[in-house]
């Protein structure tokens, strides 16, 4: 295919475009590409700061070690459980909230504004708040349950591995669902109202309208929400850090993949192996994203 020759003015425009975008490109290269490539490089080395003399090139050795490392595989399972609830549960709750806030009613705008409050709370504050709520001795949760006569003795929420994971899941859903719901509401507003009217005329009830009109029209949005929520859930860190006093406990119960990478890098100072874990997390995020695109993208095409 022959390329049309550029005029002098067009070449000037292109040069200007390159010059104008250069600062942004260089900044991204310095802040994103360099660290990324350096992390890849580190992951090919045995590099533990506590053993500086033992630093050596090990190729893919760190990645091979991941497969047989129970700490990593256990963290992978915990991350999977966490994601299952926060991604599927979070998106389902978001769609539910959006459906509730879609029809016009008195105070709808206020409700939508209030919906954003949890999302506006900084993650660290969110963690501290839930830690105070579920404190075994002075927490609000125990006080309420005791007042209602449901429990006689305080529950040690953050001392039980299963309960702590439950608290973590709840706090993450509480924090991120408002954003997901807001996106869903915006998307629902773009669905033409005449489709609903036509469905109503055809005798479709509320459930049928939701199932056959709303959901299919939200497919693209839901795919986006599943992707971003999956990314956030796989990379969860701050809430775990605050909720568990920086330990990922009790008994490693909340040590997810990202937290394990943090422990390896910053607590054990094993930067080579920690980099391999971080790169693996990035790969997992990409794979999960592609998976959602494959599942929902294909279904979308088939439906159309």
């Amino acid at each position: 295919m022959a390329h049309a020759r550029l005029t002098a003015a067009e070449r000037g425009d292109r040069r200007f475009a390159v010059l104008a975008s250069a600062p942004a490109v260089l900044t991204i290269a310095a802040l994103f590409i360099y660290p990324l490539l350096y992390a890849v490089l580190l992951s090919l080395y045995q590099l533990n700061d506590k053993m500086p003399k033992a630093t050596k090139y090990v190729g893919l050795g760190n990645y091979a070690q991941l497969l047989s490392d129970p700490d990593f595989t256990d963290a992978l399972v915990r991350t999977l459980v966490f994601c299952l609830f926060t991604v599927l549960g979070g998106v389902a709750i978001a769609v539910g909230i959006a459906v509730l806030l879609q029809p016009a009613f008195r105070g709808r705008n206020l409700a939508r504004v209030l919906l954003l409050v949890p999302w506006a709370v900084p993650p660290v504050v969110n963690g501290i708040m839930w830690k105070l709520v579920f404190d075994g001795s002075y927490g609000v949760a125990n006080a309420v349950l005791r007042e209602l006569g449901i429990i006689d003795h305080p529950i040690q929420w953050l001392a039980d591995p299963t309960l702590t994971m439950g608290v973590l899941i709840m706090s993450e859903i509480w924090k991120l669902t408002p954003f997901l719901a807001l996106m869903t509401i915006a998307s629902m507003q773009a669905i033409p109202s005449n489709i609903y009217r036509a469905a109503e005329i055809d005798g479709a009830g509320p459930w049928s309208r939701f199932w056959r009109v709303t959901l299919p029209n939200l497919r693209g949005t839901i795919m986006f929400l599943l992707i971003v929520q999956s990314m956030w859930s796989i990379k969860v860190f701050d809430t775990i850090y605050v909720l568990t006093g920086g330990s990922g406990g009790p008994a490693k119960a909340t040590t997810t993949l990202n937290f394990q990478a943090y422990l390896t890098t910053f607590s054990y100072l094993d930067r080579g192996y920690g980099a391999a874990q971080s790169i693996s997390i990035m790969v997992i995020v990409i794979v999960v994203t592609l998976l959602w695109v494959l599942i929902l993208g294909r279904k979308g095409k088939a439906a159309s």
Partner: protein
Amino acid sequence: MAVHTLTRRSAVLGGSAGIGALGLAGCVSPTSDRATGADRRGSSRALAPDGSSLEGTEISILDDNTNSVFKNGLIQRFQDQTGIVVKNYEMANFNDLHDRFATSFAAQDSSVDVVMTWAGWSAEFGQAGWLQELAPEAIPQDLIRPALDAVSWDGSVYGLPKFASVQTMFWNRGHFADAGLEPDAAPQSWDEFVTAAKAVTTDDRYGFCCDMGNPAGAYQNFLRALLLAGGELYDKDWTPKLDSEAAVEGLTKMVELLQVHKVMDPSSLQITNASDLIDVFAKGNTSIVFNWPFQWASAVAKGAETTAQTTGNALIPGISVRSASIDGSEGYAISTFSSNKQAALRWLQFAAGAEAQTRIVDDEGWFPVSKTVLDAPETTKTLPVVTSYKESTDYVTKRYGTPWSNELDQLLSAHVFAAMSQKEKPSDALKAAQRELLPVVEKYLG
């Protein structure tokens, strides 16, 4: 349909980008002196005072939030005495400091000259080559040995201690009297302790409380129980003895406190630091704790439910031995990347000196690191718990700070927790922990 062909221009652009990126990544090899910081650490010789004039030299200090005496007057005294300017003195939460130090050291940051340290970090950061080793001439002669151990690893001294700390037992005399116990009689053995803890446990409070809600806390509580049962954590070659008879007995006794005798507050499993434990005792919400000396200052402080009259202090009752305890001394060390090492050394010596030590005892209730200050009659008068501290020197007091302390804390805490919640038998839990720890130790010791 758009057709993309490989042109000379796109090939040149793509190739340049690839080469540039690889060049960026490759410009600092992980094995180079620049990456390891070897080129910035200067001489590897131990630091000794050189007598040079330090007037106007500036230093920065990153401390934990344990001691406020430095901010409240001692920094000014140091500046007046030495002419050195403390440009920046920052206090941060202890639990956050490790990662801050690690990041700062790994980045070869020279903006911090002095860092707070304790046994674990002295070993870890010392072995990493991030702390400046001190020469014997830099070390005051009258330092207490366990306090000096907290800033040493493998025969090298990496700093000077700022206070000494050993856990002792505190009990609420009022609760003892209410339960029909002799208020002044401290339990002398583990059985007496359990009997007392049962007697003071009521519907509203538990007799005993501890802080094992995070890995470091779980390790400390386990280690104390192990020492009380007459055990040791390592043999002379640093081979771990986590599954020894004494270790199993110690952990079993801890489990019994929670699950059999039901005298341990279940919230002990989620309390993550000694300060929170101090509050529980000072508010009268438990009757017996094994805690650091600053428990005394909080227990007798204005606003506390407890007072000097109602707070008892004595040795921790042993399981197989009369007593034993764990060390929690802290100190200061100099970053190897500091450009003001002589001035930083003067700060270390000032903090370990008589004036600062007397203030730390008087104002904050920590034990002094100087024998001279410890033996002064005023010290015992100001801080009655010093009597128990002196008695404790007749018994084993250890901390076992090692470069692998963090790994040990993490792996051990999971098994200690499983044992405490009766998901594993203490013997099985400790066998598993021993299995996991052996390769870690081997990795570091080769």
